[in-house]
């Protein structure tokens, strides 16, 4: 039986400006999430769990931490003799060097790589989103519909619809209309930035698109509307489940806090769909006499002597005696010194909250981002 060949192209060059100091030293996909992961672990693990064996990671903005994290992909079983993971950074050629302009341009620039792999389908993924999804099912849908392109969509609240690329589809799922961030949305089906294209079709459109001087070389703004205009078979694949694009510090904090609710849909403990990440080989956590931990996620290497409630601690965090951490996200290697109080905050990597210092207040909607240099309120 001939297996349909899929190549995943994971766009991981995003800056995530609205995350402020969180992305000061790293790209948005490398932002830590959920106690021990980075955001990119979710699409990478999804790809691994979906049985995809060829994947290209497109990096651009501050890629060092991302590259260090991904390595040769062994944590996701992508270190293969044939296929596997490749990091695709912007490069120069005889015409000169250029950065990836838009999402579609990033794919266009790597056309020779894709031709070399010679896939039937190209799966375009974003490294910015937190969700669990079986791409195999989406591909089956794409093949079954004999589609030229399939776009994964999710129902969003109507009042938020104008933030997304919004689709209208007929009963059979065929997309009839697409509008990027419409002021008056006609539907609440939002594009998740996950596309499957027949490579031959996409190739033609990329070559056409690059000729247009006014094009922003973006899938949502240019390629999809052009395909739709030509009447190609484009289908919406409706995804049900948890999906989050953490744009701001507050939504980042909220998405982390989501994990503390019993019925959270992301269920990290599900053994049939594990999320993999770089292994740090740290000793187990130590919880001392007199400490209190409730409703919290705590990672390896932490030493807890204080009071912890509704919080997420990344690796090697120290919470000293009489320190109190409430409703907060504390990234790796941070220290909460004796008697310090932290509430509704995100404490960045390696930050020390000094003894007696108090950050944030209970019963408030403010979230504080604490870095070594400053505290940002949002």
């Amino acid at each position, binding site marked *: 039986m001939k297996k349909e060949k899929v190549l995943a192209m994971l766009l991981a060059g995003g800056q995530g400006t609205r995350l402020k100091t969180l992305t000061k030293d790293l790209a948005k996909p490398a932002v830590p999430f959920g106690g021990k992961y980075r955001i990119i672990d979710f699409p990478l693990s999804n790809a691994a769990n979906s049985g995809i064996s060829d994947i290209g990671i497109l990096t651009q903005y501050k890629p060092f931490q991302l590259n260090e994290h991904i390595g040769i992909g062994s944590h996701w079983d992508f270190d293969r003799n044939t296929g596997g993971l490749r990091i695709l950074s912007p490069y120069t050629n005889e015409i000169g060097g250029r950065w990836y302009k838009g999402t579609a341009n990033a794919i266009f620039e790597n056309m020779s790589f894709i031709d070399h792999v010679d896939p039937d389908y190209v799966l375009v993924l974003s490294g910015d989103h937190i969700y669990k999804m079986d791409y195999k099912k989406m591909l089956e849908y794409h093949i079954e519909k004999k589609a030229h392109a399939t776009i994964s969509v999710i129902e969003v609240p109507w009042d938020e619809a104008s933030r997304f690329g919004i689709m209208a589809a007929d009963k059979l799922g065929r997309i009839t209309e697409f509008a990027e961030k419409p002021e008056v949305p006609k539907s609440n089906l939002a594009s998740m930035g996950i596309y499957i294209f027949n490579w031959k079709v996409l190739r033609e459109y990329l070559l056409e698109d690059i000729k247009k001087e006014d094009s922003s070389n973006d899938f949502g703004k240019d390629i999809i509307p052009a395909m739709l205009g030509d009447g190609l078979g484009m289908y919406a694949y409706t995804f049900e489940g948890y999906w989050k694009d953490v744009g701001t510090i507050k939504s980042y904090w909220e998405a982390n806090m989501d994990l503390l609710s019993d019925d959270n849909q992301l269920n990290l*403990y599900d053994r049939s769909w594990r999320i993999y990440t770089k292994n740090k*080989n740290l*000793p*187990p956590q130590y919880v001392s006499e007199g400490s209190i931990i409730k409703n919290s996620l705590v990672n390896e290497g932490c030493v807890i002597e204080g009071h912890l409630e509704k919080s997420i*601690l990344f690796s090697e965090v120290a919470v000293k005696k009489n320190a109190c951490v409430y409703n907060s996200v504390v990234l790796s290697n941070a220290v909460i010194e004796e008697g310090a109080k932290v509430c509704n905050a995100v404490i960045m990597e390696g930050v020390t909250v000094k003894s007696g210092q108090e950050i944030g207040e209970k019963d408030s909607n403010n979230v504080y981002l604490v870095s070594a240099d400053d505290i940002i309120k949002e």
Partner: protein
Amino acid sequence: MDNCMGVIDFSCTDQNFGTLTKKRAAAMLPFGGRYRLIDFFLSNMVDQDISTIGVFTGTKIRSVMDHIGSGKPWDLNRRFNGLFVFPPLYDDEKRTSVGDIFHFHSNESFFVRSSEENIFISDTNMLLKIDMNDAYKCFKESDADVTVIYKRVKDPGGRFINCDKLAISQDGTLENIGTNLGTEEEFNLFAGSLFIKKDVYLKIVRSAIEKGNAGFLKEALMNSVKRYKFNCYEHEGHIESIRNVKNYFDANMNLLDKDIYSELFSQFGIVYTKNQDEPSTFYKENATVTNSIIANGCIIDGNVQNSIIFRGVKIGKNAIVKNSIIMQKTKIEDNAVIVNAILDKMVTVENGVEIIGNHTVPYVVEKEMILSREEII
């Protein structure tokens, strides 16, 4: 550590651990929340730059192969050097019922072929983090044929009875090795590890085979104390002897001491183990945890005190776990009570069941057992 290879010898007895060693060698006993004993030996060597390691396994090899695999967690899956596993030879015609010396002899080519001229040999009875670079320096500078690692211990409580005891002369040479019967309160405890020159090792093993006067490698070495230059290196840090269920239990519990925790887990480099990709541990609304070591992937809603909890353990509401070792993926349901016990992997303790051992004799529950409450008719 240039010019030195490592050998881990599983020959130590696994008779005294009851069901814990029914299907695993003593060296494969789970330890410290997320490790196996062998991890400490492998990591100690790897962290101090030994890049060729031979593991001479006992006969219970399934768990060894499953855990070590290609040696990737220790960076031993190399193209050059790396990990070599030596399972026992099934059809060895010289196979005798006792001892491992034939095992070492029949794998002589591993030693002959490797380029290193010195060998570090460690059994797995003693758990410690050795400053190997320093010990190696002592071995090389003294130009000894063998440098034996020991620790001077005070043992009024008899913790180390039946361990190996060294007699060391004034000038630091080893005189003999015997068994500690507890007649002296302070003595030199053999730490289970030594450095040896490869050519001396080969001669000793050959001579033992020819003369037929040693069953175990250790025996053969000890027979040669007078013939070669044996000296000693003193280990400064913590040491645990793991010879029976009680020692094993205590060694785990000692990790609750902060200094021992940081010495065993982080001195001379970290300890590597097979990765299980567990998420963080979730402490729920009713969790009360004090003085315990908790690994990742657990979901805790009960009361945990003075315990070591391995990866992926679930502890239900109102359950009490006290002075116990709970191994990987064991499930303790609501209202269960576990005191002074060792629960092996994947045990299920159903709602309301009580398991209470004595602090001198911890209650051991075999792997994959389901403990349910008696039906009241």
